[in-house]
């Protein structure tokens, strides 16, 4: 067995070739030999889309034989019956390889029970010959890769080859496009609903841009085709089988575009073009043409946890009782999707979800009002057979909730109502009702809470069928399974489809809808903010480190030059040394802040590296105050509101602690900024005052920071230390800006020193009830406690333990 190190090295070499836009197997092999890792053998199973003629899977293999290297038995691919083969649809399997060295022993493939005589060239992949190989064989059956060793090798090879084949994959994409252009799909979509095709292509391209992904094609099983034909028998067309195609790629969703060739033969279908503009304007995901009775639906569905598929559905509206999506078809499709996605690594599949979401997002990005989104939500629901629904969207930005009622595919009423979402975040609820209940009786007055609405709906005869509320961080998702609801009698196909949708699917749909809603309202959720922080943090950590190092190196070189003519103890040399220390300190400080921000944003158990040394509390206070004052001076509103001065007591000047000075300063600066932000002028013509009171104790250094101005309600004294928490309070004099992070971070820094920070008091000190209700005229004191017994040295502070 090859060592992980060997595999890793081969992986790197091949990827390196791939990422530089070429793939030369000879060069790669040469490099392998140079690196003394010359033994490797890879196989990859992938279905190929570039055929257009036959149904087959392609098994690509790459092998290199080192001198005297004997491949162990486990490398041979065993032949077993295929699970896919159970469908009996595969008539041919092609086995391909890269150009192999002469030493390649075909007997290695012997276990495949291949008909050796039938080795042929693969005409369908001629333009990919350097990548895909030249050998193939006809073979009845499918290889089932049951050997763990083989699975591992194949998995490795799959990753490598799929990445290495950026070029090939692009060609495959172009072939897909070409295929689409010449298929019924394009006949339907081209110039009529271009955004659908564009989205499809864009989606596939997204995967290519990620330099990963093979495109799979799964031909519709013959016997299944016959069944599909049967399902269409009442349309009067039996000659041609519908074609189902499932697309999957490494970073892309699994997908299926499904159509029926005869549709393009129906003249009326062309009339869809007339409604193109209206369709685009509607941004609908479901298109139907009442006049012709044709319905076209773009439907999303999530397969399992980590993958998604979509399909385009066409049906004759008049025949909707005979929807082609029978349980059987669903099963086959799901099976195929799963079969494909099994070959995609976990991380890749996770990305598929994001692509899926992006796709949905792109589809709706031009939608700016919630009503349109709710319409689209209804269309999605309608496409899975839920057409008597009430949809409610509410979020926490103070807007009134949108409530829309649909009945029999038509919107009955649309209104807004007071609606309090107690769970936080965006709430998107869908209620369905039994048929026969009139929406006109719906009374929306007095709605207050989720449960009341539910009760109200129930009283009105609604079956609480599907409801999902998604909090901003998706931590809460209320799902009521469709299986628990009473569905009206529906067509078999639709019913089957509904039954096959599980909670995970609904949760994903809810998630997508929630994301779309967030995008449309430009609402930056805490989750989005955290992701942004984490991403930026990761991106700039390394450049920041380099920046500091380069700055220091420049000054070192300058000092070297200066030393040729001046004494090392000259003032210039000293200045250069001091400047290097300053660069180092700033760089260190920013890096710490980034570490904290990233660790908190990622909710990880990350850590920050601190340097505990002795520091002067007074010096930290003065420098932090300067920092806070500079910050305030950049705020025009703050400038105009008057001066703020600092007062410190004598005891503070003698206090020396042990800690990370940069973090102590950051903590104090946050406290001072907060104090300045919420201070008010107490006496006409006199500056506002922030007082710092140092209290040295034997085990603790206590620091109290006090100001007079806007107060903190007693019940909020702890909440203000939560992330992104801000008291909804507006200063009449000027806007109070902030993200709700200052106190959170300040407490975090205190805890990093085994200390604490809390709001000691916020007392009303005036005799004016109006001002009290406005929270004006409060004396507020924050208290920091840092132990005096901290030890000096470099320390790792675990972020997770202090959250």
């Amino acid at each position: 067995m090859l060592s992980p190190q060997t595999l890793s090295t081969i992986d790197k070499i091949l990827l390196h070739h791939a990422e530089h836009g070429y793939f030369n197997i000879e060069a790669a092999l040469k490099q392998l030999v140079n690196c003394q890792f010359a033994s490797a053998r890879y196989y990859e199973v992938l279905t190929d889309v570039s055929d257009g003629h036959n149904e087959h899977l392609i098994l690509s293999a790459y092998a290199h034989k080192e001198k005297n290297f004997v491949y162990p038995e486990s490398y041979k691919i065993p032949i077993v019956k295929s699970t896919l083969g159970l469908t009996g649809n595969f008539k041919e399997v092609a086995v391909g390889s890269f150009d192999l060295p002469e030493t390649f022993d075909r007997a290695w493939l012997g276990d495949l029970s291949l008909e050796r005589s039938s080795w042929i060239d693969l005409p369908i992949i001629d333009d990919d010959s350097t990548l895909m190989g030249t050998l193939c064989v006809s073979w009845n059956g499918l290889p089932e890769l049951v050997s763990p060793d083989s699975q591992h090798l194949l998995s490795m090879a799959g990753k490598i080859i799929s990445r290495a084949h950026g070029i090939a994959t692009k060609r495959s994409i172009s072939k897909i496009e070409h295929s689409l252009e010449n298929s019924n799909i394009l006949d339907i979509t081209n110039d009529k609903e271009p955004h659908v095709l564009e989205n499809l292509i864009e989606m596939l391209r997204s995967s290519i841009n990620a330099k990963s992904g093979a495109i799979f094609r799964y031909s519709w099983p013959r016997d299944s085709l016959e069944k599909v034909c049967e399902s269409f028998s009442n349309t009067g067309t039996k000659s041609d089988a519908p074609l189902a195609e499932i697309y999957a790629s490494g970073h892309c969703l699994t997908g299926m575009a499904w159509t029926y060739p005869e549709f393009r033969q129906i003249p009326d279908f062309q009339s869809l073009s007339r409604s193109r503009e209206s369709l685009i304007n509607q941004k609908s995901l479901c298109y139907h043409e009442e006049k012709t009775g044709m319905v076209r639906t773009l439907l999303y569905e999530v397969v399992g946890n980590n993958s998604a598929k979509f399909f385009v559905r066409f049906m004759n509206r008049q025949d909707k009782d005979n929807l082609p999506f029978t349980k059987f078809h669903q099963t086959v499709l799901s099976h195929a999707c799963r079969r494909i996605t099994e070959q995609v690594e976990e991380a890749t599949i996770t990305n598929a979800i994001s692509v899926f979401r992006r796709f949905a997002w792109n589809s709706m990005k031009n939608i700016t009002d919630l009503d349109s989104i709710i319409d689209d939500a209804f269309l999605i629901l309608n496409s899975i057979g839920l057409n008597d629904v009430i949809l409610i969207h509410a979020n926490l930005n103070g807007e009134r909730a949108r409530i829309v009622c649909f009945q029999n595919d038509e919107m009955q009423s649309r209104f807004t109502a007071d609606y309090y979402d107690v769970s936080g975040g965006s709430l998107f609820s869908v209620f369905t009702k039994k048929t026969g209940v009139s929406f006109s009786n719906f009374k929306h007055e007095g709605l207050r809470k989720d449960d009341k609405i539910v009760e109200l709906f129930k009283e009105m005869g609604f079956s609480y069928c599907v409801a999902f509320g998604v909090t901003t961080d998706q931590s809460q998702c209320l799902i009521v399974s469709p299986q628990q609801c009473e569905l009206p009698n529906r067509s078999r196909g639709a019913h089957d489809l509904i039954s096959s949708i599980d909670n995970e699917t609904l949760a994903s749909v809810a998630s997508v809808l929630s994301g779309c809603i967030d995008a449309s309202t430009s609402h930056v959720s805490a989750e989005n903010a955290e992701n942004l922080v984490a991403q930026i943090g990761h991106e700039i950590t390394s450049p920041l480190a380099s920046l500091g190092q380069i700055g220091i190196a420049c000054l070192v070189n300058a000092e070297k030059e200066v030393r040729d003519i001046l004494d090392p103890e000259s003032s210039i040399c000293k200045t250069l040394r001091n400047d290097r220390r300053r660069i180092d300190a700033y760089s260190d400080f920013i890096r710490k802040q980034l570490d904290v921000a990233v660790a908190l944003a990622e909710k990880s158990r990350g850590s920050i590296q601190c340097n505990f040394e002795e520091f002067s509390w007074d010096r930290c206070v003065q420098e932090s105050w300067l920092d806070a004052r500079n910050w305030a001076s950049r705020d025009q509103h703050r400038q105009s509101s008057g001066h703020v001065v600092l007062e410190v007591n004598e005891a503070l000047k003698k206090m020396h602690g042990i800690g990370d000075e940069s973090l102590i300063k950051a903590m104090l600066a946050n406290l001072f900024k907060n104090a300045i932000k919420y201070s008010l002028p107490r006496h006409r013509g006199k500056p506002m005052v922030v007082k710092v009171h140092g209290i040295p104790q034997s085990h603790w250094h206590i620091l109290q920071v006090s100001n007079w101005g806007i107060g903190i309600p007693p019940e909020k004294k702890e909440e203000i230390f939560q992330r992104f928490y801000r008291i909804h309070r507006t200063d009449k004099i000027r806007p109070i800006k902030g993200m709700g992070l200052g106190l959170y971070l300040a407490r975090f820094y205190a805890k990093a020193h085994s200390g604490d920070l809390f709001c000691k008091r916020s007392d009303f000190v005036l005799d004016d009830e109006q001002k009290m209700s406005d929270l004006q005229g409060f004396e507020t004191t924050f208290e920091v406690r840092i132990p005096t017994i901290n030890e000096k040295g470099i320390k790792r502070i675990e972020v997770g333990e202090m959250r």
Partner: protein
Amino acid sequence: MSIVKDVLSIEDEADTVVGTIAELELLGFTVDKVKNLCEAREKLKNFSYRVFLVDLRLPEAPELDADVRSGVNIVQEIESGNYGDVNSGCFIMFLSGQNTMMDLFVHQGDIKKGPKIDTYRKGASIYPLIDRIEREVKSRR
């Protein structure tokens, strides 16, 4: 018997240590710099070092991607005595841009922190690092 130098820096992203190395050189230490494992092995054929600054992620050779375990691997080679006694008795400072990965290796026991091995977070203040290197070099002279 190979020539003994003070520090070998094995770091593919030279900018992340350029200031540290400049300071060390200004202090009079002999410092060699290499960017990948192949170059490091070449150096080790001819020289011995008292202190190694080793990035956790290093490429095997130019133009190759960095491997997350390669820093650990080269240190194991050095410690095994393949390159002489001086090297095997050296002090090693692992450098990493990410605490997470470093913590993982420490947790797994791949990096055994102690008198001979320590870790440094890139971007952190370099002067405690320089002080440490200075001490370690002098104790091995």
